[in-house]
């Protein structure tokens, strides 16, 4: 359901961790709060959950002001960074915990837990203990446990942070697919731009406790409102004293009305090639291109080249 934060502020002593945040999170969206470490993004998530108490401002979930409501009664599904499994309970008991708290009848809990096990693909791990699960499995168990109480909002704190690269990618797809299936308003916190761009349909860029910009990923990437968003959301390089995307530059033969220079280094990253040029004015922009483009150009270190901005097609 929709969440609205108004004038939300949290201080730890003299440090303002969350600074006057005003934002609307649309119902049914999958929103990523993206920012460098220490930007206050995890604290913002805990403020929404009620695990931290704001110094100022209000938290409103689908029209209810829940600022003074204990997290027990907020109906929020929260997944912790390290999953916080109940280690002495098996997977089924973990998932059913919230339902037992709500005093649901035994048979209802049993059916519900079985459905959730199926949803997160842990049917064969029902009787395993958290210690016997892999990182990805623990995360899925934590998701099922949070979803069991049919939360109004699902909050995920760095959900893929502690996983290796392959499991990470798998779980990203899994979360996206899960959200498509159950449509619960979901907010996840991450410091990884690629992750945020891939998974989320809404982005909140946070920096030094403030929201720098909010909107759809493509919109933010193409029309960053601040220098910070521009540099944080993708690679940038300085050309004619202005920060531009390296894939918005191209190399051409010298003297076609562009600044002349010489290729000083070439980095081959599989499909992507990064070519650094030292220009006659002393600046060193780098240009991002595909392997095919690079082959067609036929440049090597030391080749004289010119750089210009790509003409939009």
């Amino acid at each position: 359901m929709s969440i609205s934060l108004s004038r939300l502020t949290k201080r730890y002593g003299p440090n303002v961790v969350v600074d006057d945040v005003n934002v609307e999170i649309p119902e049914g969206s999958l929103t990523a709060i993206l920012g460098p470490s220490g930007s206050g993004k995890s604290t913002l998530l805990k403020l929404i959950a009620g695990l931290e108490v704001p110094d100022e401002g209000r938290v409103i979930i689908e029209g209810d002001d829940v600022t003074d409501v204990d997290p027990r009664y907020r109906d929020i599904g929260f997944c912790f960074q390290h999953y916080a499994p109940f280690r002495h309970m098996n997977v089924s008991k973990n998932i059913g915990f919230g339902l037992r708290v709500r005093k649901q009848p035994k048979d209802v809990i049993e059916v519900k837990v079985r459905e959730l096990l199926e949803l997160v693909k842990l049917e064969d791990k029902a009787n395993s203990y958290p210690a016997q699960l892999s990182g990805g499995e623990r995360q899925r168990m934590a998701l099922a446990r949070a979803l069991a109480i049919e939360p109004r909002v699902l909050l995920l704190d760095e959900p893929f942070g502690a996983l290796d690269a392959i499991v990470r990618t798998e779980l990203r797809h899994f979360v996206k697919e899960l959200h498509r299936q159950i449509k619960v308003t979901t907010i996840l916190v991450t410091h990884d731009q690629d992750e945020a761009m891939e998974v989320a349909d809404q982005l909140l860029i946070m920096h030094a406790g403030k929201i720098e910009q909010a909107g759809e990923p493509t919109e933010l990437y193409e029309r960053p409102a601040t220098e910070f968003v521009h540099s944080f959301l993708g690679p940038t390089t300085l050309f004619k004293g202005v920060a531009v995307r390296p894939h918005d530059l191209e190399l051409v033969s010298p003297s076609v009305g562009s600044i002349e220079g010489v290729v000083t280094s070439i980095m081959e990253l599989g499909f992507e090639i990064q070519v650094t040029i030292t220009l006659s004015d002393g600046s060193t922009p780098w240009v991002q291109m595909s392997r095919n483009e690079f082959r067609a150009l036929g440049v090597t270190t030391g080749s004289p080249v010119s750089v210009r901005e790509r003409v939009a097609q």
Partner: protein
Amino acid sequence: MKHTSRKWSLRVIVIGYLALLVGLPVGYLFIKAFSHGLGAFWSEVTKPNAVAALKLSAEVALIAVPVNTVIGIGAALLLAKKKFFGSRALTLAFDIPVAVSPIIIGVALILAYSRIGWFGAWLSKNGITILFSPVGIVMATMAVSLPYVLRSVLPVLIEVGKDQEQAARTLGAGAFRTFWQITLPAIRWGVLYGVTLTIARTLGEFGAVLVVSGDITGKTQTLPIYIFAVWDQSYDTIGAFAGALVLASISIVALIILSSLRARERKLHVDLA
């Protein structure tokens, strides 16, 4: 080759050290206690004064151990949550009774609660006796076994962190349920270890209890004091050995139960994470 020989010499040193300090004396105690046969051993431990001492020790433990367990867990919960003004002083206060010689605890209790102390004077005016009675023994015992549960539980509690408790809270659990179903199971080994140490210290305390008990045979003698009395006053070596054997056995059995419980739990893979 070199590696194995070093490993073996290390083992020999450790085992030899333990044998000298623990194995040999305790083993000898077992042999000596039964040197006049099972019947002599039995008649020693069933002497009225021995039984009275064992009973008093058991009663003291039955009060001191649960009280110190509850207080230890409570203090650990308080200290693990957040640093507050005076939290370090509080931790220190818990440690004082085991950091100083037990005799000091005994003497300090006498000072505070005898008629020369202002509090003791008020108590005696109101007809309450603490010294030379089981009440004083319980107090001295609780003092010297105060920090064991706190010291065993606090590091576990800090290591477990508050994530599980917070997760339970977001799932709707209240403080009571969270403690019994989440926190306590998570720290149970720390608690059991602390309780075992508390039991051992409670049954074994000699110095502090001796000072406050008045050493009245059959009335205020706990098992360790009884053992010392029969050894020191009546040169009754069999009686002392028999009593010592009973005392040692209780603690050893407690330790064995704890470690076997733990081994069984490990087998179930519950605690491996």
